[in-house]
């Protein structure tokens, strides 16, 4: 029990540190928030001439993608960020299990993502005078939590790239994130994609998240009717997180063999 409490305290170190960083970089946080809001609004306006449902479809896509990409970005860039600050060696030699370290990053990413998404939802709802009377918020919340697992897993796998190659790895995580945006049906049905690219949509967990979230928020569908999607998302998440941790562990060994934990790598 003492060990668990000690690990939870260490886990909190990363959450507290990152929220402190948010406070200290408040100017940039406001810039990103404004950009996100404007982005969601401009996408929403595209659908205005096509009816209310289309606006909701687009806005929900923008919001969910915003949340999932925050999760992915915060987890995958955690190594790059520490390297840029010059603290990577200090963090990696601390007596903290890597599971705890990455767990702390994930807890922070979920909390930070929720705060940003709530602000976005509030502003967008005001702007488009959206009514979500039929929405099943409880179901949406469950879907979001279950989907978070798979995005954390993807983030962990992507975090390996900057660990192995400081500059190119970080570039690769951005390409990966952009590909997810392309294939997951964020702003359009995946049926409009060229046939050869659709297999990527099938393997992207964001495809199922967006589908289920739209069903919950726009149609008010209960969880019971989305059992298969939910189960699939859960299985993907439960596979990706241990896989991500395993790969991260291998990459850390590689980085220590090749001397890539330094600031310059």
């Amino acid at each position: 029990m003492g060990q668990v409490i000690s690990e939870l305290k260490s886990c909190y170190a990363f959450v507290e540190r990152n929220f402190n960083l948010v406070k200290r970089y408040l100017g940039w946080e406001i810039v990103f928030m404004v950009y996100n809001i404007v982005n969601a609004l401009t996408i929403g306006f595209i659908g205005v001439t096509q009816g209310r449902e289309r606006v909701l479809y687009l806005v929900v896509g923008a919001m969910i993608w915003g949340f999932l990409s925050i999760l992915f970005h915060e987890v995958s860039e955690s190594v790059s960020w520490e390297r840029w600050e010059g603290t990577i060696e200090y963090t990696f030699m601390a007596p903290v299990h890597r599971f705890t370290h990455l767990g702390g990053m994930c807890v922070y990413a979920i909390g930070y993502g929720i705060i940003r998404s709530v602000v976005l939802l509030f502003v967008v709802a005001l702007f488009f005078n959206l009514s979500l009377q039929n929405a099943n918020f409880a179901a949406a919340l469950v879907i979001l939590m279950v989907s978070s697992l798979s995005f954390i897993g993807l983030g962990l796998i992507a975090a390996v790239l900057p660990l192995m190659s400081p500059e190119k790895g970080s570039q690769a995580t951005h390409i990966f994130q952009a590909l997810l945006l392309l294939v997951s049906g964020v702003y359009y049905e995946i049926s409009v994609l060229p046939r050869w690219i659709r297999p990527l949509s099938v393997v992207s967990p964001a495809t199922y998240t967006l589908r289920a979230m739209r069903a919950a928020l726009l149609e008010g569908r209960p969880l019971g009717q989305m059992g298969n999607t939910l189960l699939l998302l859960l299985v993907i998440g439960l596979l990706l997180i241990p896989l991500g941790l395993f790969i991260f562990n291998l990459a850390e060994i590689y980085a220590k063999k090749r001397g890539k934990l330094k600031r310059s790598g």
Partner: protein
Amino acid sequence: MNSAIRCIEITKFFYEKRSGSGSKGGLLGWGGKKRRLTAVDSLDLEVKRGEIFGIVGPNGSGKSTLVRLISTLLLPDKGQIEVFGLDVVKEKFQVRKMINRVSVDAAFFKKLSCWENLSYAARLYGVPIKEAKGRAIEILKTFGFQEGKINQPMENLSRGMQQMVAIARAFFTSPVLLLLDEPTTGLDPKSKRQVQEFVLKVREGHNSTVLLTTHDMDEADRICDRLAIIDQGRFVALDTPENLKLMVKGEREEVSLEEVFMELTGKGWEEE
């Protein structure tokens, strides 16, 4: 167990891209032609408990690589390292609880305040926050650090002050082995002296073992019980500062450690 550190035939290689080979480095930096550099070459070392052990040598001689190996940030290619009898590869978690390190560049989140950085460290090392704050302020005061500055962002502090915070951060976790990797490089003479005094004080008060790497021969001479001179990843001499001087003294009345280095390596101190 009288040894704080035991290194047995430690070797560490790095791989560097060959310049002018036309290689692009391949995907994620893999592939491409590389050459092998030996950073640490079959080193044997034993540092006794409670000792201040110095390693002096020019840039690129392998000092920092050795410190990184001991602090679990690098894996050796050959050999074995033990810290208080624990293998740094197999028992890294236990080793990390006993050590702390101050590096040449004070590794901080520059936008975070001094205290925010210290509280992060305290949580990582399981030091209760109140206790950590008290200890940190006490240590910082010995350096003449004003208490009010503890809430200042690190980027607003001078290089010397940042290094003092780094030292306070390392000490307030009460490490039994302290790895000081060029802790005074870039500090003004007064700050340098304060850090040196503090290291001596800590050794007396806490019975910590200190491994110090430095460029500064006078510093090594002043505070180290024993010294190793390292060049191209190998120790060329290891003894007390006095004995090292005696080794090369000959007919001269007095020799400095710089002269000892030049004599033993056949190189000038600034040559590297």
